[in-house]
């Protein structure tokens, strides 16, 4: 009876078509759910592969609501093809079983010849590994706690599911027991298989406490400036404010202990080296901070990328901060295309460090003076955009160089895709600067010539200007 009333409400609320969809959805079954959680770095990368039978139109999947603030990146793929997805508004028909979850629905087109489809949901979370203990000394190991649920909740019935955790080390201090459903193989922990899981079942808490010595490098802020010159150069400069976001270091720092550990190649909660992958063709690379040039960096030219390894001035321990900037030049062929006077700039959006996550990213694109019809096409939602202008060398007209400012929060490696900015620019205007310089020097010479021809003497010289007697 209650079910019929609920159905009636649903019918009134969403119309007959939606109800038809709901009916079809009732047949959807996950024949297999495989969840792979990679917590071997400072991130939690969760890839859940749903093998689905009987879906058509849309497929719903659930993510924990309390981790939603930490969700940096998400993508849904089916056979390596990206799928569109959107957040589901909570529907009145949903019961309390889905509490604490956020539902998404992805648009799925099932191929006619296949009965089952595989949908992979990839979610990257930042700041979910809690250091425990919160403070360690230089000689202690850094251990973290990861908490999730034993099962991946789904609004559909699941025939069989497993959860695999990839840890940073085989040193596990404690983990959730699941009798006869858990196997540990070195740094891999598998829970399952669990069979015939009802909808929205989460199976209780999954908590694992393990040693993790990955670099907990968090950039509290990062500013990237991409300055385009139509004379053939794209200058990129990046400013970082970095912090070690792992277990805070307590007690003093001993250089001797640090070196001893380093020589013995023992795992160490600190890091010093960060690798960046710059676009191919990057040249004139520099790495500096407020003091000046930092000499500890190496550059390797690989196929398709320039690998820059930067070493900080000091090893980074928990809670320690560091700030620096780095930059390089790129020929315009590497990022700028044009057809006539319409230009398209394509540059990486995120910072080039795969192991760093950025809390607050600002990307500034500085276009040449005179650029107009500027359209910025950031690759993601949630990028705020602003405009301003900048006056630097040889900017003469009142408008200055147009600057597009884009800001985004919680940026990870997966965000490092191409940012597109298009603009119109009259190429003849490029001659403005040389003409300006030529004009200035011409004016100087003309002034000098004119000055040379003016007789500034008070008394006239020559024979006819003999001194008067008197």
């Amino acid at each position: 009876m209650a079910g019929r009333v609920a159905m009636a409400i649903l019918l009134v609320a969403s119309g007959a078509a939606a109800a038809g969809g709901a009916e079809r959805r009732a047949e959807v079954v996950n024949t297999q759910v495989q969840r792979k959680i990679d917590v071997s770095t400072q991130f939690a990368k969760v890839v859940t592969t749903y093998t689905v039978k009987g879906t058509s139109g849309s497929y719903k999947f659930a993510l924990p609501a309390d981790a939603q603030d930490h969700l940096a990146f998400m993508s849904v793929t089916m056979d390596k093809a990206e799928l569109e997805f959107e957040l589901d508004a909570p529907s009145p028909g949903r019961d309390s079983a889905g509490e604490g979850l956020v539902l998404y629905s992805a648009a799925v087109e099932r191929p006619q010849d296949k009965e089952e489809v595989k949908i992979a949901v990839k979610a990257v979370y930042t700041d979910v590994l809690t250091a425990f203990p919160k403070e360690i000394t230089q000689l202690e190991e850094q251990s973290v706690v990861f908490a999730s649920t034993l099962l991946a909740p789904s609004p559909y019935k699941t025939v069989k599911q497993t959860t695999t955790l990839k840890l940073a080390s085989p040193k596990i201090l404690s983990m959730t027991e699941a009798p006869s459903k858990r196997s540990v193989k070195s740094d891999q922990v598998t829970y399952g298989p669990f069979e015939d899981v009802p909808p929205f079942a989460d199976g209780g808490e999954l908590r694992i406490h393990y040693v993790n010595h990955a670099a907990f490098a968090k950039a509290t802020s990062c500013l990237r400036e991409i300055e385009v010159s139509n004379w053939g150069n794209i200058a990129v400069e990046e400013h970082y404010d970095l912090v070690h976001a792992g277990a805070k270091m307590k007690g003093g720092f001993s250089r001797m202990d640090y070196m001893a550990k380093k020589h013995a190649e023992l795992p160490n909660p600190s890091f010093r080296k960060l690798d960046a992958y710059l676009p191919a063709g990057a040249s004139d690379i520099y790495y500096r901070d407020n003091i000046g040039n930092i000499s500890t960096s190496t550059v390797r030219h690989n196929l398709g990328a320039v690998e820059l390894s930067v070493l900080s001035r000091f090893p980074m321990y928990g809670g320690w901060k560091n700030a620096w900037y780095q930059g390089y030049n790129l020929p315009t062929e590497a990022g700028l295309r044009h057809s006539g006077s319409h230009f398209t700039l394509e540059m990486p959006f995120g910072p080039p460090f795969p192991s760093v996550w950025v809390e607050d990213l600002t990307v500034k694109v500085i276009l040449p003076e005179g650029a107009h019809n500027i359209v910025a096409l950031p690759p993601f939602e949630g990028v705020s955009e602003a405009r301003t202008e900048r006056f630097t060398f040889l900017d003469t007209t009142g408008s200055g160089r147009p600057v597009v400012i884009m800001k985004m929060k919680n940026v990870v490696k997966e965000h490092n895709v191409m940012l597109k900015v298009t603009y119109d620019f009259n190429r003849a205007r490029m001659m403005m600067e040389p003409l300006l310089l030529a004009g200035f020097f011409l004016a100087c010479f003309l002034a000098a010539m004119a000055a040379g021809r003016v007789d500034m003497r008070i008394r006239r010289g020559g024979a006819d200007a003999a001194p008067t007697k008197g």
Partner: protein
Amino acid sequence: MARGRSCAAVALALASVLLFTAAELNAPGTTGVLQASIGGKRTLVLADGPQIQDSHSMFFSALEARGHELAFRFAGSADVPLTSFGEREFDNLVLLAQSLSGAVEKGSKAVTVADIMEFIEDGGNVLMAGGDSMGTLSRSVGALCGVDFDPQGSRVVDHFTAVKDEQLGELEGRGVYANTAIKGEVAADNALYLGSYSAGRDGAVVFSGVGHEVDDENYLATKVLTASGTAYSADPTNSIGKFPENAGRDTLLVSAVQARTNARMLFTGSLAMFSNRFFTLPEAGNNVFCSEISKWVFAERGILRASSITHTRQDGSDAELLLKQKERRDLPMSLFPEPEIAKNSQVYRVKDNVTYSVVIEEFDSEKGGWRPYTAEDVQMEFVMLDAYERITLEPGARGLFKKTFTVPDTYGIFKFRVHYRRPGYTVLSFSTQVSIRPFTHSEYERFLVAAYPYYASALSVMVGFLMFCAAFLYSKDEAPSTKASQ
């Protein structure tokens, strides 16, 4: 038990919320200890053997009635981490043991002095009662906290106040040990320690055990209970040859110590004091006394909290900002870096009248949690290395302490500092930084009377110069004589 746990959880959650909101309201640049943690209820009892659960059941049930979750561990199996992964497993430790000695089970590790000291440094509270044969563990913990117990074998003896009762045990006042169950005298006349206990109404505290002493200059320790003037501390089984270990009121029976981390400790050399036998002695106040003093030790009383720290000019206007957040043009960061100076520094001028205020509250679990604190002696110092001003804040409604004062005629970086230490209360110590600037040029007085001579001299020089010019231009020299030129 479950109810107690949920109550504690609610109290903790409430405390954290309050702390958060309090931190929001304080003036920028405020640092220090604004609040000590209120008493948690996870209590560990370390004892020599399980018989303590029977012999001291009245004391334990009084603790349980107040919501404490008691965990018992005994010598030999005392494998219990006081802290794990840097976090305290318990809020309170009750050490009711002689020595905690005994064979330790295989694979387990006995509690050490270092464990207990680390626990105290993390802010855990300790109630420690030793006994007649007090071991090195208890003695070392006491010594590290400034409490020196009298040597092994000694007892506090008093022939005048001794209690003689059939209930007393073999070691507590019979036979050779006659006259060792004595009545103590309350030394700390402070309701924060003693609560509702009063010796006149509830009867004296009966004590049997080892005395101790505390350095008179130890301001972290408070003498709660002393022996009477006729008591002395010595080995009752031997004759006293020299001077006894301690004599008279210098023999301390119960001492309270509050560490610099606001952790609280209670030391006594009598295990029997907390026992059912002594609780039920006729005319003995042990029951009320032990229960009340444990409320202080377990931070259920006398916790202070400061919040809403503000400072303004007397007319209510806020301090200026040293470096106003200027709207900067968009410029390349590496060529035009941000200046490396402290921003948003609060600035007053010398001779400004500044009003400082702070809200102080007191926690008492029996009187319904946090309530306004009243006192006439809360002082605030205005400090630049030295205190330039030391003023007593005026108490107002709802725990508000406030006072207006004139900033000294010295410029520099100052702090409003409150360091409030009173017996029985946790210590408040916090400061708020402000800058004091000199007068700007436009703020000095103009046309002072004292400067009139200078004005007059400047004007007179000008007038004189005009007169000289006029005289020089419009006077004519005598024509030179032709004779002289030839």
